[in-house]
């Protein structure tokens, strides 16, 4: 599925993996998270190969990983506050007052103060994503993985989520890896971009470079949207 990928994600930056559906983005993400084992090759965290980690080391590493799933993956049986508190309850020995204080701090950061007692089913899709972000960052992770965080959201809410992810990445010096096929996200927060095609790393660069590249596979993907085609045509006409 994935072939010859050699790529380093930068700390403190939003690293985007883009590509069409079926290009191998999700498989790549699952390999990085250790949910799939690659047949060959190495995935390393801070230079140390994941495969060389003992079970205990893998568990310790996972505590430093925050993950934002496509659908939010909030626990239905818990309210917003309990969802966000979950990693703290599982991995720390903090007192409840300390945990609550941290939960309120992150909920405030994602602009969701006052929603702690609501159940996931009682809040909108955008709010669910923000709760999921709060849960992902509550334990101060070093790495944040996001699987198509904008899927199912309106453009305005999608932009809010994108910007929130980028702000948190910079504020907390997190290595963020974000999978998307949404070109608006690329335009908003694509500090470093890897383009996958048929399981191969076909191109890498920045958001400025992606709109200037001559690479056919990349331009096909980028300008597959009418909007971006019109923008390019307008730019070429000097409008």
């Amino acid at each position: 599925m994935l072939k010859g990928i050699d790529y380093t994600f930068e700390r403190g930056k939003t690293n985007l993996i883009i590509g069409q559906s079926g290009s191998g983005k999700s498989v790549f993400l699952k390999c990085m998270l250790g949910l799939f084992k690659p047949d060959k090759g190495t995935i390393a965290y801070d230079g140390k190969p994941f495969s060389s980690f003992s079970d205990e080391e893998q568990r310790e590493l996972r505590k430093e990983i925050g993950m934002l799933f496509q659908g939010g993956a909030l626990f239905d049986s818990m309210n917003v506050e309990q969802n966000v508190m979950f990693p703290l309850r599982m991995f720390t020995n903090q007192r409840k007052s300390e945990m609550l204080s941290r939960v309120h701090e992150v909920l405030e950061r994602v602009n969701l103060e006052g929603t702690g007692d609501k159940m996931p089913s009682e809040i909108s899709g955008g709010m669910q994503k923000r709760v999921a972000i709060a849960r992902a960052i509550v334990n101060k992770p070093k790495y944040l993985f996001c699987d198509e965080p904008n899927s199912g959201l309106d453009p305005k809410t999608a932009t809010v989520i994108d910007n929130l992810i980028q702000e948190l990445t910079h504020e907390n010096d997190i290595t963020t890896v974000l999978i998307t096929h949404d070109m608006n996200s690329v335009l908003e927060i694509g500090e470093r971009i890897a383009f996958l095609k048929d399981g191969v790393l076909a191109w890498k660069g920045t958001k400025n470079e992606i709109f200037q590249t001559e690479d056919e596979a990349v331009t096909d993907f980028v300008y597959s949207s009418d909007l971006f085609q019109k923008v390019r045509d307008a730019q070429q006409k000097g409008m």
Partner: protein
Amino acid sequence: MLKGVFGRMTKASVLRNLILKEINDLIMGSMGIVAFLSFFIGAVVAIQTALNLTNPLIPKTLVAYAARQSVILEFSPTFISIIMAGKVGSFITSSIGSMRVTEQIDALEVMGINSKNYLIFPKIIAMFTYPFVICISMFLGIAGAYTAAVLGGFVTSDQFITGLQDEFIPFHLTYAFLKTILFAFILATVPAYHGYYMKGGALEVGEAATTSFVWTSVVLIVTNYLVTQLLLS
């Protein structure tokens, strides 16, 4: 799956709350239907037995004897377990299956939590309180039989009490509770397996719940046969 369930344990304080929640959902939530069914099936067993005792040489105390034996040996442990396979089993499959579909299980795994232990182990422990449900079912089944037989005028209260104590073999209770414990384990694990390993979307959650009910019932009936063969024959 069982290796994972009994593998790396979830934090004790979290596990305690999960077990209490499961006892509430799986056991306490089933008490109403179990009580209702037990009382009325016990009553029907007594009426059926009484109506079939046409030979005057057969003592009336047999009504209570038959009700007691039916309720303790088969009705409460086995019949109620089949009902529980529908109620509790479907609940377990659909709740775990929904978590699979909505990536909640993946979320647990990514966090480094043993999802099998977190989700299934508390259910198994909670189901070990299942003999308590069966105990109540036995009591209510016999109470139902007493009510129907005495109030229906088939036997006197004294005849019923005498029949109830007639040739009582305490090992039958041991047999009933031994198989109840096995059934409890089956009721927790077979539906959990179907929920945990399901693939697909919401429609498949429903299919998994149905399949889980069928397989749980099959495993219960076969286990019932084997245990009976081993312990009573």
